[in-house]
C-alpha cells in the first residue's frame, strides 16, 4: 500500500510505502511514517548475559508488574546467555525483574534479585550470590 505525499516540500513529492508492521518507520519525501506499536509488540531483542552464576541456580525473569514470565530455567553453567524480546518504548514488559535462586539443593544460595529496563541491545550482570549457610 502506498501513500502519496506532497508534504513539506513539493520538490520531494512522491510515494511512500506504508510500513507493513507496527513500529517500523518508512521515511521519504520529508515524511516519517510509522504504525503505532502496541505495548506487547516486540521491537527487537536484548541479550542478557549473567556471569558468576552458581551452577544449578534457577534464573527467573518476569516483568516488574508480575504479569508475564520472560525466562525461567536452571543454569547449567556459570555464564548464562539469555536472548529476550524487548517491546515498544514505554511498554511495562521491558521492566524486568531478575531473580537467581538456589534453594533446593546444596550448596544453597541466598536469593539474588535485581531489576532493569531493557532496550534492544545487550548487557551483562555480575551475579553476586551469597551462600545460604543456614539453609544449607
Amino acid at each position, binding site marked *: 500500500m502506498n501513500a502519496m505525499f506532497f*508534504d*513539506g*516540500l*513539493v*520538490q*520531494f513529492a*512522491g510515494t*511512500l*510505502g*506504508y*510500513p507493513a*508492521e*507496527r*513500529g*517500523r*518507520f*518508512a*521515511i*521519504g*519525501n*520529508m*515524511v*516519517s*511514517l*510509522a*504504525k*503505532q*506499536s*502496541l*505495548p506487547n509488540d516486540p*521491537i*527487537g531483542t536484548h541479550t542478557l548475559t549473567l556471569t558468576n552464576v552458581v551452577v544449578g541456580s534457577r534464573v527467573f525473569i518476569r516483568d516488574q508488574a508480575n504479569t508475564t514470565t520472560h525466562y525461567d530455567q536452571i543454569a547449567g553453567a556459570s555464564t548464562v546467555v539469555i536472548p529476550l524480546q524487548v517491546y*515498544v*518504548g*514505554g511498554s511495562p514488559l521491558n521492566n524486568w525483574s531478575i531473580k537467581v535462586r538456589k534453594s533446593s539443593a546444596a550448596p544453597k544460595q541466598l536469593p539474588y534479585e535485581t531489576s532493569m*529496563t*531493557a*532496550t*534492544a*541491545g545487550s548487557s551483562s550482570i555480575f551475579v553476586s550470590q551469597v551462600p545460604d549457610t543456614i539453609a544449607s
Partner: protein
Amino acid sequence: MPKYVDHGLYASHAASPTWGAAQDGDGSAIGAATSATVSIDLSAATAAAGATFVIMGATLTCVASAAAANQFNAGAGATLVANLVTAINRSTNTRTCIAAPHNGTSWTTPKVQDTVFARIGTPTTTLQIMTRAGSADYNAVGTISTSGLTGGTFGPYTFSGGVSGAWGWLFNPSATAFGSAIAVMGYGVWEQQKPIAGAIAAGDLVNIRSNKTVTLLSASLYTINLSAMGSPDSPVKFVIDDSTVWADGANPVLRIRQTPTSNGYGFTLTGVTATHAHIKAPKYTSGNGFILEFVTTAGYSGFVNGAIGCPATFENLTFSAPGTRAQSLGSASIVGSTYSMTADKVTRYIGCLLEWPGQQNATLQMGNGGYNFRCELIDCEIKANDAAAAATSLVAIHNNNTHRLVLDSCKFTGFVPGSRLIASATAATGNDTLFVRNCDFGNVNVLGPNLLTSPIGEFDAGMCGFFATSQYGTRDFVYERAGRLYAEWNYSKGRPYLNARLNDGTTPWSIFAVTANTALCVSKLCPVELPRISKIIPENVDLAEGVRTLTLNFLLESNLAAWTKQDISVLVEYQAPDGTVETLNSYDSNAGALSTSGASWSATSWNAQTWLPKTFSVVTPTSVKAGSEISIYVRLHSTVTNETWGVIIDPEIIVT
C-alpha cells in the same frame, strides 16, 4: 528532415578559399557540399558614382574614388571587375545578405564577404563569384542585380551548380573565418554566428558526426557558446552519432580537447538565455560518447566547464581533466554564467561525468551573483581522481538572486572520507536552494550542519537552504533552512538512538536538529519546525479508542541544559472520534522545566559531548480516533551558538 554536421569536412574557412571548393554546407545532406558560382561579363559596363551592385540583398555603392566599406570605385570593363572584386572581398564590409532570396527564409544574414568570394575571371572583364557555402538553394534564384551601370543591361544574375551538404564546423577552433575574419570560436553550429547557409530551425534533429577529436588552441580561454535557437516547445536536438548515420566503427567518440602549454587556460560549454537545445551523446559501457577534456601531463592548471544559464539539456557528456595531481591541476565544473533564467527554463545535465585529479572545491556552482538560475543534474557522476585530502566545499552557494540546483540520483566517487558538500557558514541571503534526491554521496559524508547564514532567515521551507531525501537504503535526509535550522538523519554519523527502527525492523535511527545562530530568525513565538513525523493509531480491535498520552524522548546537548518547555515543544495534530481535527501544542510560555528521562539511550556520550536524556508528555484532551493518523512536529524556539549542539530526537513517539 534531419540535418547533419561533419566537423572538419571542408578544408578551410580562410578568407581566400580555393576557387569552387565549398567552405561549409547547408546541413541538409550527409556528404560534402559544392559551392554555387556565377560569371558576369562586364566588358561593356561602366560604373559611375551612385551605381550599385547588389548581392543577395547586400548593396555595394559606387564612388568616384577611395572606396571604403560597402563601396566600390568607379570604372569600366576590367577595371570595374577588379574594383568589384576588391569591394566584395573587403573585410570591413558591414552589408549583410538577406535570407529572403533563398528558399529557406530562416537562414542567417551573414556579411556579404562571408557569404561569397569574388575573383577576376578570364578574360579580366569577367567577374566571378562563388558562394562560400554549398547549397542547392542558391541555384536559379536571381540574387545579383545592378543599377546605374551604363553600356547595356547587367543582371539580374543567378548562381548555379550549388550542391547541398553537411555543415562542416561546430565552431572555428583555431583560426578566424571567412572574409570578415570572424573571431576564433565565433562561427559554427555551436557558436554565436550560425552557419552561413541553411537554418537550424526549431524542432530540428541535427546529427553530428563522431569519431574525431577537435583540438583547441593550447594557450587561449575558449567558450563554446551556443546561440539562440529553437523554442521552449520545439528545442533543437543535437545527436552525437554512434555510427547510426556515419559508418565510423564501434563506439565512436567525439572529443573536444585543449592541451595547454601553461597555466590558466581552459574552455566552457554554455549557451544564452534563448538556447533551446538538447545535446545528446551515446552512453557506451566504456563511457560517454562526447568528451570535453583538458589534457596535460605537465601539471598545468586550467578547467573544462559546463555552465548554467541556458535552457539546454546536455546528456551523456564527460567533462574531464584526466591524469593525476602531479600531471594536472585541471578541474571540471558546472559554473554560473551571465544569463538569467525564468521559471520555465532549466539547464539540465543528464548522465554526465565530471572528473578531475585531486579534491577541487566548488565544482558545482549554484549560480552567479546578479543572475537567476535553475539547474538540474540527473544521474551524473562527480568523480575525484587521485584525491589526497577531503574536499571542503563541493557545492558553492551564492548569496543573492534566485538559484536552484537539483541533484537527482547523482553519485560522488573517489573522494576522501570526511569530504564536505557545502562550506560551513556560507552566506545564502537570496533565494538559494539545493535540492537533493536519492544521491549516493560516498565519502562526501559531511552534509552539515552548514549553518547557512541568512540575516532575514528562510520564510518558508524550500525557499532557501539545502534539502535532501532518499527513498533507498537508510533513507537519510537533510533539512537545512538558511538562517533557521539544520536537521538530519544521517546513518553514517552513528548518533545515539532509542526506540525508533527503520522499516527493516532492526536499524535504529534518530533525528539530529540544531537551530541557527541568527538573531530574529528563531524566537519563542516564531519557532522553526522539523519535518512531520506521522503515526498511525491502531485500530479499535487492537487498542481501544481513548485519550492518549504522547511521550517524546530526546537528548539535549549539555550546553543547552537550561532549555525549558519554552525552547522545545511539540505540535500534535490528531483526529477526534467525530472526525474533527484537533491540535495540541506543548509550548509553555511559563518556561516550565523539561523532565529528565530514564530512557536507556544507546549512548549519552557521543562526539566528545554529553547528551542529557529528556522527555515530555502531552495528553490529548479528547479521544483519538482509532485507525487515524496523528502528525507530530517538533518545534525549536531558541537559537544555538554551536552547530554541534542541539537535540537528538527519538522519532518513536510513545503513544499510550
